[in-house]
């Protein structure tokens, strides 16, 4: 096993860990807004770490360039999507959870 393989595996494992954490947050957090925090943030870094792992595994080629574009689009699209869902919930009048209330 080459050194680069180990590094790319580490990156992918890190990405998988953050995706799992995001899923755990989706189950643990008490309401819609806080759940969006877990998924919106963990998924951004999780996806990017997995893509970086793929880049290192693949080596330098035009695939790398495409993966860099993919990373950029994730960085732009992920916050926009999170914001759009949250705005939709807020505008339709979903009340945010406050500390001390029962979970929904």
């Amino acid at each position, binding site marked *: 096993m080459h050194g680069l393989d180990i590094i790319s595996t580490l990156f992918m494992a890190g990405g998988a860990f*953050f995706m799992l954490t995001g899923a755990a*947050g989706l189950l643990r957090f008490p*309401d819609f*807004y806080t759940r969006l925090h*877990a998924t919106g*943030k*963990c998924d*951004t870094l999780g996806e990017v770490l997995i893509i970086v792992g793929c880049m290192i595994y693949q080596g330098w080629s035009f695939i790398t360039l495409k993966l860099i574009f993919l990373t950029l689009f994730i960085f732009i699209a992920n*916050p926009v999507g999170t*914001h759009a869902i949250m705005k939709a919930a807020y505008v339709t009048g979903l009340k945010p959870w406050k500390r001390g209330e029962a979970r929904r």
Partner: protein
Amino acid sequence: MVFKSKGEKAFSMVVTFCAMFIFWLLLSAWIIYIPQHYDLIEISKGIICALIVTLISHELLVSKRGERVLLKTLRLIPYLGWELWQIVLATFDVAYRVIHPKMPIDPRIIEFETTLRSDFALTTLANSITLTPGTITILVRPETGKFWVHAIAEKPADALLVDQTMQRKVAHVYMEE
């Protein structure tokens, strides 16, 4: 979006077309670099695709001729580096809150006003708020520069309300202090 003159419309179309065609070239570079596939038909396919995208969406990419675009782009680069570091911090912050047995969250909605007015500056700030630790943008009112933000605890809320590091950084990048 309203254009002031025909010249600005032509300018935005040319810029969009160039950007789209360069993007197509980069994505389909394997066609160009293998000699037997390199011919006029492939290139014209790319030009036609870029033209279609330009006709539909040239108003979105470049709305009008900006001022001091080069300087703003140069200032954006260190900001993006800082932003990347904030993304890493944000993920660790949320991961800590998820894994911690007591779940240290105290959600609240905060409001604040900024001096920013241009579309790009407001979009950058809104996206940055969503990417940085513990906060997500809910609503933005562009006329008054007002933001509604959902914060997951008190500390990230104070970072936006009291410190205002990010607002100052974005204002510096887009020169709207």
